[in-house]
């Protein structure tokens, strides 16, 4: 339609005859030029975006991998199988395994409260949840020491009951939970809002109780928001340095997580050890991302949502 119109508009242009190729005609040539311009622009945007990523992200990470395996696998294996490295690895996993489920339950609960609840001070609660994003992790660490440390508010009482939080694993779990607190709630809340309450009300009229409605209707509908929040939380928790660094006391082989161990090796001029454990850390994070991607893709194609 538009083709014949533009042909007709051209002086001397004849009505489009079947079989007459559009090649060489003015209108298609203009369109081709426009296409080329769009293509060039798209290519430009892509180049800039990819270049930026390459410079900031891919090159450094690639460098670490390169440096790590520069002298083959044997030194790397020795470095990552050192007792302190192994301990740091399992400690990181342990902390993530406690902090992430805690934050997931808390985050989903908070999102429900913020999106479904009716109460005063909701806006304030929303701001409070975001606070860990705004405060530097170092400050979080210091604040935790002030509250739970030996000279802190609860410190004496806790010590009296034989509970040590600061310079031990519980404190590190708390610090990790605090800095990764907002992710699940922030990823889940918009999905809940988008979902609306119709389906939940329908479930209620069909006789479902609040728990049944949550497990069978609400949670399946918001699962991608939750999964994404969990992945972000996991990545953040794995990589946490500042708050954990202060709260842990960085006791070798006792309260050293992987990021702390990397820093420790680096400061002690054990470059291979630092790089090798950094690679382990990076692979853990990468594994989380890939796992999510696979999970999402498989389930999505199955339910065709």
């Amino acid at each position, binding site marked *: 339609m538009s083709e014949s119109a533009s042909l007709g508009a051209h002086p001397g242009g004849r009505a489009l005859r079947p079989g007459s190729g559009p090649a060489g005609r003015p209108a298609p040539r203009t369109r081709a030029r426009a296409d080329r311009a769009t293509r060039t622009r798209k290519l430009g945007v892509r180049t800039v975006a990819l270049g930026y990523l390459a410079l900031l992200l891919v090159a450094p990470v690639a460098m670490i991998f390169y440096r790590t395996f520069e002298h083959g696998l044997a030194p790397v294996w020795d470095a990552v199988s050192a007792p302190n490295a192994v301990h740091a690895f399992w400690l990181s996993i342990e902390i993530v395994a406690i902090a992430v489920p805690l934050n997931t339950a808390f985050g989903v609960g908070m999102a429900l409260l913020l999106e479904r609840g009716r109460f005063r001070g909701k806006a304030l609660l929303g701001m409070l949840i975001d606070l860990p994003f705004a405060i530097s992790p170092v400050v979080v660490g210091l604040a935790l020491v002030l509250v739970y440390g030996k000279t802190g508010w609860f410190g004496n009482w806790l010590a009296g009951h034989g509970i040590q939080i600061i310079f031990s694993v519980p404190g590190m779990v708390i610090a990790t939970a605090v800095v990764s607190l907002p992710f699940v709630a922030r990823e889940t809340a918009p999905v809940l809002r988008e979902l609306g309450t*119709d*389906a939940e*009300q*329908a*479930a*209620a*009229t*069909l*006789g*479902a*109780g609040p728990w*049944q409605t949550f497990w*069978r*209707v609400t949670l*399946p*509908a918001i699962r991608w928001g939750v999964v994404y929040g969990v992945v972000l939380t996991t990545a953040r928790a794995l990589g946490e340095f500042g708050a954990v660094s202060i709260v842990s006391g960085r006791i070798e082989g006792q309260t050293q997580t992987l990021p702390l161990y990397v820093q420790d090796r680096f400061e002690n001029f054990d470059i291979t050890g630092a790089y090798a454990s950094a690679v382990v850390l990076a692979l853990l994070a990468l594994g989380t991302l890939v796992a999510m991607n696979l999970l999402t893709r498989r389930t999505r194609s199955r*339910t*065709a*949502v």
Partner: protein
Amino acid sequence: MAIEVHNVSKRFGEFVALDDVCIRVNDGALTALLGPSGSGKSTLLRIIAGLETPDSGEVQIGEELVTDAPARTRDVGFVFQHYAPFKHMTVHDNVGFGLTVRRRPRAEIRARVAELLGLVRLEGLADRYPSQLSGGQLQRMALARALAVQPRVLLLDEPFGALDAQVRAELREWLRRLHEEIHVTTIFVTHDQEEAMEVAEQIVVMNRGRIEQAGTPRELYESPRNEFVMSFIGPVNRLGEASFLRPHDIQILPSAEGGQGTEALIERVVHLGFEVRVELKLGDGRDVWAQVTRETAAELELHEGQILAVRLPAPRVFAA
């Protein structure tokens, strides 16, 4: 199961959604709540279902006072305006949901779902997901889901609102027949008077949170209690402050009887199939329209610009 609503009021902030409303729906009846948007009809339906709590008043289903009972214990089937499908479940699981949460045996659920899908003519679509259904199919799935638990009453909120005209007409007819088949007490909300007249046995006309009138479609049409009901149900000409005339009551006279009527000028003739709409300007300057049949229009050779005589019966006048 009969439904009774006694003196129910509901406010949303400053807005009065329902103001001292009383209705009674007989066991097995098919009733329409009809009114413009904001008239409180949906709020009333949601209060009956337990999805909204009234500020005052009582709701009774059968012999049971349910005012304070949560929605899930009321045993009502509710069909939402946008169907509220469970998108992550198949049609089968959607329809079977009410039975699943009641922990019925799987074989029983399967049998009941198959029966219902037959009833709503969705056989063969059990394994589809809601995203793969059309609007009309979703509507029927939502209905099957609501009926699966054998509710005491069936409530539908603007059941045909989101469908296109043809599907709508089809589903109206079908809902009527379905009701004849299963005879569950049914209330549906609509803003479409034609839909209410066509489907319902009883209509409750609502306006600004109050009941204007309740009765059979015929009662409402023939003896409207007030201005609002008269102008909301059926076409109407407004002649003065509160005096109304139905367009089909205006008689266009053949030229031979011209001397006996009021003079009028035809401004426009609109052919709507069987019905022809004639827009007239009366001698005193008032605009009215008359509804005549195709045959009459042809016989009298009605056309724009024609001057002729019409007979106006006494209008219906309401006390202000």
